[in-house]
């Protein structure tokens, strides 16, 4: 019931807003903020009530109800630790986004309704435990996002939004066929648990099913070379759209790998793992290199997302407890740090109405608080120790290095080069925008953060520091889910290649030679193997 409330509160709020007069912009802003804050407050109860002990049930807050029994489709929702974290990320980001969108003045009612509808769809995607329910929420994202970009975006918005919609829609439809195929071969039920435990298909069919799911998720992540919709969508979207897109939507792809593509089809996932991991590593470097040549701030941040999500995918494909935990943690980090970057770039844009890096320079003197926030977020984005980004990237690289995946150490090395490149492009961006002499007259009259803007960015900065210094509360819920996935993949691995494991960590002796063992022991949540 509690989970149902969190899922559908925003939708109820959107329905109420639909009946409020359109002319009352302030009323709509206030109402949307109130609804999203209320949702966040209720979701805190989920956080508090979640039992992360090893003996606890895998999915908590479960609800089952009849939905379309004529077709064997049920309403089944529940949360494991990873889904819980992503739901919390969603409910925490949405009020921030709504507050940041108080500057939207055109069609405020529709804007807020779209955001609230989007929140329900996002939470539902993470909470769904029925394949069709999942698909419905997954696709329901598209419509509000399509409108957010297309109606409130900048110059080239129509092209960007149509590309976004078609790219993701076309990639997802094959997943629908795969879902139907799974249902037909798993006892006629669309239930996730029934499908996971009861799926009986040939290895060849499993390969195709994995590819169908993986395609949908890889486009959403986005993985190189399926990322081309992302820079356009990010650049043209309004700030709120970019933040939601980076903060939550991309996580739906990585979450999809974690929840669906890997556990449902473990054998095929292992077969395709080298390719996916290699693409992830390529994405890390490619995204970082693309960042170096961007002239548009938003586009730069968009390409940095490609790089960061490459890290997440690399961590997931390592299939070690460290790698998976790091991947999950990095999902949260990316939501917070890249979300914050988009918020800050949006604030700069509102002051100067340009996103071109060359138009700025030296503005730190005019907007010291904004610059401070930007630097803190940058440090998180490049993974400086003491920020959340460090914990995630370190776990991912350590987990990959120590894993048994063929070529793991090469991939980890390539990934580590992405960390360096990340520092280069982000610090260079900060230098070009905020430091140096003020080259343009317009930049001399920029106002610093307003109270509202400070309220928008403060919770993000707080999270960056807290998650960097005390990661434990954020890692703990993910642990049971990570352990279960590692175990599941290990079983499949033994079937595939008995005696030559490719999953899990190398023996401690080797591991100690590869990295300081103490560092791993210090990394919480990295216990099981």
């Amino acid at each position, binding site marked *: 019931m509690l989970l149902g409330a969190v899922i559908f509160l925003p939708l109820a709020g959107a329905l109420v807003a639909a009946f409020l007069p359109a002319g009352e912009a302030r009323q709509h802003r206030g109402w949307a903020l109130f609804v999203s804050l209320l949702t966040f407050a209720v979701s805190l109860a989920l956080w508090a009530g979640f039992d992360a002990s090893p003996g606890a049930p895998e999915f908590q807050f479960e609800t089952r109800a009849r939905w*379309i029994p*004529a077709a064997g489709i049920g309403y089944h929702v529940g949360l494991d630790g990873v889904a819980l974290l992503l739901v919390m990320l969603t409910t925490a980001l949405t009020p921030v986004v709504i507050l940041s969108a108080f500057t939207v003045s055109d069609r405020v009612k529709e804007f807020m309704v779209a955001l609230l509808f989007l929140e329900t769809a996002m939470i539902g995607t993470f909470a769904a435990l029925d394949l069709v329910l999942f698909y419905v929420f997954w696709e*329901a994202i598209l419509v509000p996002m399509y409108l957010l970009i297309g109606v409130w975006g900048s110059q080239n918005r129509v092209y960007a939004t*149509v590309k976004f919609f078609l790219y993701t829609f076309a990639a997802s439809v094959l997943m629908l*066929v795969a879902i139907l195929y799974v249902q037909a071969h798993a006892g006629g039920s669309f239930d996730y648990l029934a499908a996971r435990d009861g799926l009986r298909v040939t290895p060849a069919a499993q390969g195709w099913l994995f590819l169908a799911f993986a395609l949908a998720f890889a486009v959403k992540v986005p993985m190189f070379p399926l990322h081309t919709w992302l820079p356009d969508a990010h650049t043209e979207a309004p700030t709120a759209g970019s933040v939601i897109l980076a903060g939550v939507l991309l996580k739906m792809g990585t979450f999809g790998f974690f929840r669906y593509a890997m556990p449902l089809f473990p054998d095929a996932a292992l077969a395709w793992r080298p390719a996916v991991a290699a693409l992830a590593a390529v994405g890390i470097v490619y995204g970082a290199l693309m960042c170096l040549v961007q002239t548009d701030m938003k586009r730069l941040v968009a390409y940095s997302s490609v790089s960061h999500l490459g890290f997440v995918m690399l961590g997931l494909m390592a299939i070690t407890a460290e790698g998976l935990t790091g991947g999950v943690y990095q999902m949260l980090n990316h939501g917070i740090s890249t979300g914050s970057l988009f918020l800050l770039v949006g604030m700069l844009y509102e002051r100067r109405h340009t996103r071109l890096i060359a138009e700025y320079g030296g503005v730190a003197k005019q907007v010291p608080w904004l610059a401070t926030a930007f630097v803190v977020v940058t440090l998180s984005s490049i993974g400086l120790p003491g920020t959340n980004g460090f914990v995630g990237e370190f776990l991912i690289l350590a987990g990959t290095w120590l894993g048994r995946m063929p070529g793991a150490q090469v991939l980890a090395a390539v990934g580590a080069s992405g960390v360096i490149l990340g520092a280069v492009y982000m610090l260079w961006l900060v230098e070009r925008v905020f430091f140096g002499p003020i080259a343009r007259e317009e930049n001399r009259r920029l106002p610093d953060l307003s109270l509202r803007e400070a309220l928008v960015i403060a919770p993000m900065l707080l999270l960056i520091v807290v998650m960097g210094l005390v990661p434990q509360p954020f890692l703990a819920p993910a642990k049971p889910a990570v352990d279960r996935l590692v175990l599941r993949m290990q079983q499949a691995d033994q079937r595939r290649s008995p005696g030559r494991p490719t999953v899990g960590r190398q023996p401690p002796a080797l591991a100690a030679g590869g990295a300081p063992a103490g560092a791993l022991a210090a990394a919480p949540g990295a216990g099981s193997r």
Partner: protein
Amino acid sequence: MIQVPAQDFLALAPVAVLALGGIALVLSEVFLTSGARGYQAGLAVAFAAAAALAAVLAPHPARIFGGQGAADGFATFVTVTVCAGLALSALVGASWLGPRDAERGEFYGLALFGASGMALLGMATDLLVAFVAIEVMSLSIYALAAWMRRGKKPAEAAFKYFILGAFSSALFLYGTALVFGATGSTRLADVARGGGGPLLVGGLVLVTAGLAFKVAAVPFHVWTPDVYEGAPTPVTAFMAAGVKAAAFAVLARTMLAAFAGAPAAPAGGFGGLLAILAVLTMAAGNLLAVPQRSVKRMLAYSSIAHAGYLVVGVVVAGHPAAREQALSSVLFYLAIYSATVIGAFAVVGALEGRGATPADEPEDAWDLDRLAGLGRRRPMLALAMAVFMLSLAGVPPTAGFVAKLLVFKAAIAADAWGLAVVGVLTSALGAYYYLRVVVYMYMRPAVGAEPAEAGSPLLSVALGAAVLAVVILGVGPEPVASLARAAAAIAP
């Protein structure tokens, strides 16, 4: 002397009610003493409702008139769908004809006669009965297509529809003759028993071709864009909804008989032939819709594409394990598609450009540009159109998604995953042109200063009902889905 039980006649009650309604509306024109025709649409809706009620309440023997018809759940579902489509189209018709000073009792009368043919077609299990029903339906629609007879496009449309329709009827009739020659009977039950050899196969191929004309399946679709574009918009809506529902009902029954009776037909039996038809229809319909700038023509091609998805449902009904699922998915799809497409054509009709006289037709009457900025000019109309477009594209949480889901689920159950893959890929292509309508409505400024006309209340009722159906059945399809499931158990 054949003894016919009284309940066989009672089972025909919906057909009779619709025909009586047609007579009543034609007569209403005779007794008219003033120009006030506002009640006629209401009367048509009332007769449609009465017929639907009659269909539900009448006795349901599985065989009537010695196996020439069946008043089973399948027929009832089709009749109710047709009646709902008729009622919606009548409301749309009133709001469209009124301003053009073309509202006459005969319009509704013809529509009711057509609907009586459709209801009869839903019951037909004999090729000759089906032929008579098809003719009753088609003659009314030919006349309706020519309703605005002074325009060039309506004249062309009606003429084309009549010629090609007559041709397809001839094919159907010739096929029926061959079937009779092969089996000594025109009853589907006898066809299913088989044993007619190549003659039976040849006859059934011709019958199938005749029906493929009616449902606008590729390669028998060439009339569709011109006729759909030229016919008065409410008539197009009624054609897309009613004719399609009735024709698919008889196609499904005929094909079930053909699957059983002529398994040795080329290309893997009738299942294989029909599968080829389905792939062609889905691909060509969606591909040809992409370049269209006229929204009405785009919807015509889209109706071809949707016929393709429905043919998939019919094909997989040949698989015994998937039959019930497949037939129920076809019925559900027909019901949802009717509501959606009538709504979409209603919006098109409300916006179409008009010349000074009926003969003076603007070239861009249905151009996409007329939709530009609709989100600001007429927000409710734009919202309704957006819902219809998303439903046609099959985006959750609209009913169109559930309909596609059920069809493809049946395809997977029949192990026809190839058809499902083609289906989803072509529907992804379809998303492009449906979205373009939304782009124009919400993301482009209005072209020219078109005054914001007030919509007629009848149109609002029709659109409201269609939007509610699409949204509510998208979120909670169970009531209709279970009805469709119950109706799918038909005798082969």
